[in-house]
């Protein structure tokens, strides 16, 4: 048996899914968090039943790719749990009526039930059940209220085989139902609602946006640096370094195995950034340089997502984004990209047209550095002064704007307009915020650490065989001539295909000037996506568009690096 969770966007299907299956998926407070389906299993009457978290859709006549997936999924299921936002019953019922016209049995979950009371909404459950002809259960997925009742009634799910209706007939039927089932009593605006209104008005909206983003940035820096300075650096320097030195002695202080496991020990000191062994740099880069910023970034992003701020940012940025061939909602994948480009490119599915998705995915993979790379930029470039970090971010921002304007001119078609539901502000329970933070950490630990360790190993072996020297000599005209970097820096660009954080770390032993580090960081950020992003780009754009995007990336990266080299090393 296969159970589908279906409903409008942002009604809590993903929280529902986690409750039913114990499989934790990312849930946020904005429409379109789930762009592809997730499957899990739950126990029902002693047998394991498949449950599928279907992307949200307003109607079975799809208007975006995520909605298209939802419509296709419908044909594969045995039962639908139609998750309905009880505070927006009228609009949600449209999909419900469409579902009731299909052959598939339906049970309705009136979710966010706890919010109806203070909003002055009263719903007559038994009358609603009568009208729909299927079980209706009030639920609060976030707290788990009503979930066991819902599970009990799954086997009562039926298909009333409602007659096929036109759009206007459905709305007329909904009007009748609402008249007899729902009463709304007037009540005053809450403080959160007044704040919500203020954040989509021009003047107050911009002030709030600047405030929110500045605080977000400061908190990310504060937590990230705090974790490094007070927790991870002391751990590595005071506890791990002596262990490494003992091990180095045991391995005879040199030799093939020593170089791979520990790397170079200079003057009896461990340099975790430069030594480049599996147990030194291989652990220090992911755990002590990148992980702290993964923690701080995703904590802040998670809060912004769950509070419901991101759609407001979309409204605010809409005019700007139209210049780049996108509309405001593209800001959501872009913000996700500052964490990791992979989910960001998946999230471009919330955009309507192929053209928008191409532009958004290309801009993200060129100009939006992921948290891992940013952590390394802050760590390495930041040593030379904050002004150099500013040059890196300033350059990437200019490239983002300029390339967007150019792509908007060059790519055929037009950008559709913004049309999104803006969810109410919600104060997320800490439990859900921390749970999501953990899911994202697990993703980083499981995917990044093995790649980093494998890369360190491979690089060390290749060094021994002199492979990198051959490449370095071959590419010297571009790397040295155009970008003004030592020819060995090409190794970093090659490794950038595996992991950009590690790649930037490889520039550390080259004793680069601050200017060279800036150029290296910018080129590395733009040049080519890492392998994980590359795979997802091919999947989402298709091979032809991916090749186009790759050509744009390489050209723009070399051009930008060359210009930076001219400005930083010759003009100034």
């Amino acid at each position, binding site marked *: 048996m296969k159970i589908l969770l279906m409903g409008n966007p942002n009604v809590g299907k993903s929280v529902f899914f986690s409750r039913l299956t114990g499989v934790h998926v990312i849930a946020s407070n904005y429409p379109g968090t789930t762009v592809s389906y997730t499957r899990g299993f739950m126990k029902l009457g002693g047998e394991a039943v498949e449950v599928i978290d279907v992307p949200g859709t307003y109607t079975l006549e799809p*208007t975006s790719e995520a909605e298209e997936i939802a419509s296709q999924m419908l044909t594969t299921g045995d039962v639908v749990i139609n998750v309905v936002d009880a505070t927006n019953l009228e609009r949600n019922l449209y999909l419900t009526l469409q579902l009731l016209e299909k052959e598939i049995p339906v049970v309705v979950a009136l979710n966010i039930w706890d919010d109806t009371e203070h909003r002055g909404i009263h719903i007559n459950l038994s009358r609603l059940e009568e009208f729909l002809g299927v079980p209706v259960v009030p639920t609060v997925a976030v707290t788990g209220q009503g979930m066991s009742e819902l599970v009990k009634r799954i086997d009562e799910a039926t298909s009333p085989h409602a007659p096929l209706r036109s759009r206007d007939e459905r709305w007329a039927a909904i009007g009748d139902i609402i008249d007899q089932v729902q009463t709304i009593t007037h009540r005053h605006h809450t403080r959160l609602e007044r704040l919500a209104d203020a954040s989509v008005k021009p003047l107050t909206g911009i002030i709030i946006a600047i405030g929110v983003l500045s605080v977000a940035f400061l908190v990310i820096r504060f937590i990230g640096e705090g974790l490094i300075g007070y927790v991870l650096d002391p751990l590595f320097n005071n506890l791990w370094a002596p262990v490494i030195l003992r091990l180095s002695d045991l391995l005879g202080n040199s030799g093939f195995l020593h170089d791979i496991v520990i790397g170079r020990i200079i003057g009896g000191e461990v340099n975790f950034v430069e030594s480049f062994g599996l147990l030194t740099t291989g652990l220090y880069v992911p755990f002590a340089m990148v992980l702290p910023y993964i923690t701080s970034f995703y904590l802040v992003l998670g809060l912004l997502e769950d509070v419901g701020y991101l759609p407001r940012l979309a409204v605010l940025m*809409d*005019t700007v984004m139209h210049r780049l061939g996108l509309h405001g909602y593209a800001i959501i994948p872009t913000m996700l990209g500052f964490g990791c480009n992979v989910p960001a490119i998946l999230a471009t599915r919330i955009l309507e047209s192929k053209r928008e998705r191409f532009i958004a995915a290309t801009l993200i993979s060129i100009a939006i550095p992921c948290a891992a790379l940013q952590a390394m930029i802050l760590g390495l470039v930041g040593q030379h002064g904050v002004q150099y970090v500013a040059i890196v971010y300033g350059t990437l921002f200019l490239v983002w704007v300029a390339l967007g304007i150019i792509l908007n001119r060059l790519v055929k078609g037009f950008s559709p307009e913004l049309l999104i*539901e803006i969810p*109410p502000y919600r104060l997320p329970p800490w439990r859900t915020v921390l749970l999501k933070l953990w899911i994202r950490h697990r993703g980083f630990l499981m995917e990044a650490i093995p790649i980093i360790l494998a890369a360190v190993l491979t690089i060390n072996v290749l060094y021994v065989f002199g492979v990198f020297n051959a490449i370095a000599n071959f590419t010297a005209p571009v790397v040295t001539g155009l970008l003004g970097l030592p020819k060995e820096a090409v190794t970093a660009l090659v490794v950038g295909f595996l992991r950009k954080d590690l790649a930037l770390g490889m520039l550390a032993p080259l004793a680069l000037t601050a200017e060279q580090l800036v150029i290296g960081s910018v080129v590395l950020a733009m040049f080519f996506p890492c392998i994980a992003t590359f795979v997802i780009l091919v999947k989402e754009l298709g091979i032809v568009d991916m090749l186009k995007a790759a050509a744009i990336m390489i050209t723009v990266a070399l051009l930008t690096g060359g210009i930076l080299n001219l400005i930083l090393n010759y003009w100034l």
Partner: protein
Amino acid sequence: MADSKQVTLRQMRAGQSGIVVQIQGGHGLINRLSALGIRPGKKITKVGSMFMRGPVTIQLDSAQVAIGFGMANKVIVDLG
């Protein structure tokens, strides 16, 4: 209908309420708007709009929807 006043969503002032009377667009637009509950006969309140041809935000029931400038120009509202 003689003394009723009809304007587009864009022309409404922030805080004004009215009834949607018509959507001057093709099937695609009408479908997308009605999926979000914006359809003739529906009472809406304008929350505000962004300057420089930015989107218009409206309140309907307990939901808010942001609508691009061009679309907002095609939604006709009766201020009553």
